[in-house]
C-alpha cells in the first residue's frame, strides 16, 4: 500500500484529504467523528472576531442541481461564517488538537480589514495548538457585503496587506483562501505570495443562483419569497477549480507556492487530478455533506491503489506531474491531426453522433439507409463532439494520422511539431524567412 502521508507547509497528516472550512468542521463533535472516519485534517469553520456571533438565516440556506436520479451535482449556499461564540470554538479546537496530534487542524479566520482585528485573533488561535491559519478571502455572500470575504479577495492589494499583517503577528503557517469570483486568479495568488503567505487554497464558492421558482418567482433557496446569490460548489465546479489551480501552479511568478486544492472533490480520482495539477493536498466539503464522512475511505483506498499501480512511493511523486503539460493554446501542436473512427461492432445505431455533427458541426458523418454511421475523413475536423455525445464508451475514438500522411480534409501532409507562433496565417508569425 502506498504511503499517503503528506506534509503541507510542514503540517503533517496521514493522508492528503482534509475537510474544507464549512459546516462539516463547525464543531468538535463533527471533527472528532471526521477524524475517526479517517480524514487527514480539517480546516475549522471560519471564525469571526470576538463579540456577538454572526447570525444565519433561519430558513433554507441551500439550493441544489441534481441529475435525473437525484444525484447531487451542484450545491449553493447562503450560510455565513460560524455562528457560535469564538471562545467555544477555540476551546473545542484545543481539545481536538490535543486528542488528535497526528491530524492537521488549521483554523479559518475572517475579521474586519484592519490590522488590530487580525492582531487580536491570531494569538488566540495560536494558543489552541492549531497547525496553521487559513484566511477566508473567499466567501461571496453576506460577509462580502460587510467588506470581508470576497470583498477582500477581489482586491489583490488588500490580500497582500492582510497576509503581511498575519505573517507579522503569528508564527503559524498562513494559507490564503482565494475566491474564484474574479477574472484572473493569478493576481490574487501573486498578491498572497507577495504578502508573505505560505500557501494559497482554492477555490471558495462561485456566486450563483441555482434556480428560480416559476410560481413564486423567487430565486432558490427562498427566504420568505426573496433570495440572494449564494456560493456554488460540488462536482459541478471541479473543472473551474482545476483550471485555477493549474493557472497558479504554472505561473512563473507564483511557481513553487504550495496550493491546497478545493472544489468538487468527490472521489479519489478528483483528488488525484488536483494533485497532478500541483495541489499539495485537497479539501472537501460538498461530497462529505452529501454522503457523510465515510466517503474518505474510498478516497484513501482509491488513491493508494492508483499510486501502487503507478509505482508512486509518496504523494509528492504525483504532485505537479501534469503541470508541465498545461500550456497556452498557441503552443499546441497544429500537426497533431486526428480523425474520428466509429467501431461498427460497438455501435448501437442511435445516431446521436450524426445529429451532433450534421446539425451543429462539420457534416462529417455519413448515415446509410440501414443506419450505418461512418466518418468522412475529408470533412472531419477532429473536434471530438461525436465522441462526447456517443452513449457507448469507446465506440468512437480518435485516430492519429502518422507523420507523412495526407489529411484528406486539407490536402496537407502531416509534419513535425508546429504551432501557431510559426503558422503562416499568424500575422505575428516568427517563421523563419
Amino acid at each position: 500500500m502506498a504511503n499517503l502521508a503528506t506534509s503541507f507547509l510542514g503540517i503533517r497528516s496521514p493522508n492528503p484529504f482534509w475537510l474544507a472550512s464549512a459546516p462539516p468542521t463547525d464543531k468538535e463533535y463533527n471533527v472528532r467523528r471526521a477524524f475517526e472516519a479517517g480524514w487527514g485534517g480539517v480546516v475549522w469553520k471560519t471564525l469571526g472576531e470576538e463579540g456577538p456571533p454572526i447570525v444565519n438565516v433561519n430558513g433554507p440556506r441551500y439550493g441544489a442541481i441534481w441529475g435525473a436520479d437525484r444525484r447531487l451535482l451542484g450545491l449553493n449556499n447562503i450560510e455565513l461564517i460560524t455562528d457560535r461564540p469564538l471562545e467555544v470554538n477555540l476551546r473545542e479546537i484545543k481539545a481536538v488538537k490535543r486528542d488528535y496530534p497526528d491530524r492537521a487542524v488549521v483554523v479559518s479566520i475572517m475579521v474586519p480589514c484592519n490590522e488590530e482585528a487580525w492582531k487580536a485573533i491570531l494569538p488566540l488561535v495560536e494558543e489552541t495548538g492549531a497547525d496553521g491559519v487559513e484566511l477566508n478571502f473567499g466567501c461571496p455572500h453576506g460577509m462580502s457585503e460587510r467588506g470581508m470575504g470576497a470583498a477582500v479577495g477581489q482586491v489583490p492589494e488588500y490580500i497582500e496587506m492582510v497576509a503581511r499583517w498575519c505573517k507579522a503577528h503569528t508564527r503559524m503557517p498562513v494559507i490564503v483562501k482565494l475566491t474564484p469570483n474574479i477574472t484572473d486568479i493569478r493576481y490574487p495568488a501573486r498578491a498572497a505570495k507577495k504578502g508573505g503567505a505560505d500557501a494559497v487554497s482554492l477555490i471558495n464558492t462561485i456566486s450563483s443562483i441555482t434556480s428560480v421558482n416559476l410560481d413564486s418567482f423567487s430565486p432558490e433557496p427562498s427566504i420568505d419569497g426573496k433570495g440572494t446569490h449564494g456560493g456554488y460548489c460540488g462536482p459541478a465546479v471541479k473543472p473551474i477549480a482545476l483550471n485555477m489551480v493549474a493557472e497558479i501552479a504554472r505561473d512563473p511568478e507564483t511557481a513553487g507556492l504550495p496550493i491546497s486544492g478545493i472544489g468538487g472533490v468527490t472521489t479519489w480520482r478528483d483528488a488525484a487530478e488536483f494533485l497532478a495539477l500541483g495541489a499539495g493536498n485537497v479539501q472537501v466539503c460538498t461530497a462529505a455533506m452529501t454522503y457523510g464522512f465515510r466517503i474518505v475511505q474510498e478516497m484513501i483506498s482509491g488513491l493508494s491503489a492508483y499510486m501502487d499501480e503507478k509505482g508512486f512511493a509518496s504523494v509528492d511523486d504525483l504532485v505537479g506531474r501534469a503541470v508541465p503539460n498545461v500550456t497556452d493554446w498557441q503552443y499546441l501542436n497544429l500537426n497533431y491531426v486526428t480523425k474520428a473512427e466509429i467501431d461498427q461492432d460497438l455501435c448501437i445505431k442511435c445516431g446521436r453522433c450524426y445529429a451532433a455533427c450534421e446539425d451543429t458541426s462539420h457534416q462529417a458523418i455519413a448515415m446509410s439507409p440501414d443506419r450505418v454511421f461512418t466518418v468522412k475523413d475529408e470533412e472531419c475536423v477532429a473536434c471530438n463532439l461525436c465522441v462526447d455525445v456517443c452513449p457507448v464508451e469507446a465506440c468512437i475514438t480518435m485516430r492519429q494520422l502518422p507523420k507523412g500522411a495526407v489529411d484528406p480534409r486539407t490536402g496537407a501532409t502531416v509534419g513535425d511539431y508546429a504551432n501557431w507562433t510559426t503558422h503562416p496565417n499568424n500575422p505575428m508569425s516568427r517563421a523563419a524567412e
Partner: protein
Amino acid sequence: MTNSPLTPGVAPGRLPAETLAANFSDKAPAYDPHEAMVAADRCYFCHDAPCITACPTTIDIPLFIRQIATGTPEAAGRTIFEQNILGGMCARVCPTENLCEGACVREAAEGKPVEIGRLQRFATDSLMAQGGHPFARAPETGKRVAVVGAGPAGLAAAHRLAMKGHAVTVFEARGKAGGLNEFGIAAYKSPDGFAQDEVDWLLSIGGITVETGKSLGAGLTLDGLRADHDAVLLAVGLAGVNALAAEGEDVDGVRDAVDFIAELRQAGDKAALPIGRDVVVIGGGMTAIDAGVQSKLLGAENVTIVYRRGPAAMGASRREQDLATSKGVRIVHNAAPVRVIGNGTVREIEFAYTSPTPQGLALLDETFRLKADQVFKAIGQVLDGAPEALARDGRKIAVTGAGRTSLPGVWAAGDCAAGGDDLTVTAVAEGRDAAEDIHATLMAG
C-alpha cells in the same frame, strides 16, 4: 443423439450437448464494466445502511459499491474479502432477495434494489483475476489449530486463523475441499470450476494444510485432535439426510437429492448422467429447487416438486421458486408422500393433501399419484457423526457466543452448529467469528 425427453425410464443424454452446455452455463453472467458502473450509480451510500445489517458477514456494501463506481473494483473486492473471504461464492449463491437486496432502500421505494450480488461478483472477480492474494499472514504464533470439515465455515475459519499467524490443519472426509460449494450448490450458480479455484485462491495465503480423506469418527478422534492441537473447530456441516417415512421408499429410483446433486456437480460430461423422464422431488428448500431445476435442465420431461406446506413456508426464496417455475418445473404445495409404488423400481408415488392444524400437519383423505421414474428426497439434512461428548441443542451442536461448544478448546461453526439459517454466508460468518474467538482465547494464554 438417441435419447430425448420422451425416452421412457431413466436415461442419459436426453438433450443435445450444446443445449446441456447452455443449460449449465452461468445463471447470471458477469457484468461488463459499463453495466457495473450503471448498476453502482444507483447506490445511495446510505447512512448505517440496512444492506450491511442484512448481510450475515456485514460487508461494507455502500463502500464497495462506491469503489466500483470510482473505477477501483479491486479495492472493492478487498473491502468484501475483509469481511467475507468467500465473497466470490456468496455473490453467486446468496439468496440476496432475502438478505442485502431485500433490505435495500430502493427495494422499498421502487421494488428494484441495487443489484448488490452481481456487483459483488464484479468486484471479487476483478480482484481474483489480478492474481496473488490480498492478505498477508501475521508472524507465526506457534499455535496449532485443527479444523474439521473444508466447507465454507471451515475454510473461512482456516483463512482467518492463518491470517492471524496460527498453523492450521483442515481435515476433510471427502477427496476435495469446498464442502457444499463443491458438492451441493447448483451447477449454474458456480460454473467453470469456480468452487475449486476459490479454494485454491483462499489457501494461497499460506499456513493452511488440507488433509483430504481424513474423517472424524473414522480414523480421527476428537480426543486425538485436542491432544495434538491448541484448539479444534468442528465445521462438518450436515452429512445425514432425513428419511421420508413413506411406505415403500426403499426401491430403486428413490434417492437423496444431495447425492444426486453431488454426482451432477462432479460429472465432467452432463450427457452421461442418467435422468428420469418423470422426476418427482420432495421438499421445499433450496435443495429441492436445485434438484428439480437441474433435472429439468438435464432433459427430464416432467419435473414436479411436492412440498407439504404452502409457498410462504418454503425454505427456498420466492426468486428461487420463480426460477424453478420459469424452467418448467411444477410446484405442488400442501401434499405429503404416503406411498412409493413400484415393484423393485419406483413407478409412481402417492401423496395425500395436507392441512395445517395446531397439532401439526394433518393428512387429508384425498390423495393423488404422480408418475415417477426418479424420486429425489430433499427433506432436510441432519447432523451425522458428531462426537457424542458435545452437548446438543435440538439436533445440532450446542454453542454459546462465537461457536464455543460444551468442551473447552472445541468450537463449532456452520450448519453443524445450532443457530444460523443454513446458508453459505452464515457458515462463513460463523467460521470467521469462531476463528476470531479462538485467536483471542489462544493469545490470552
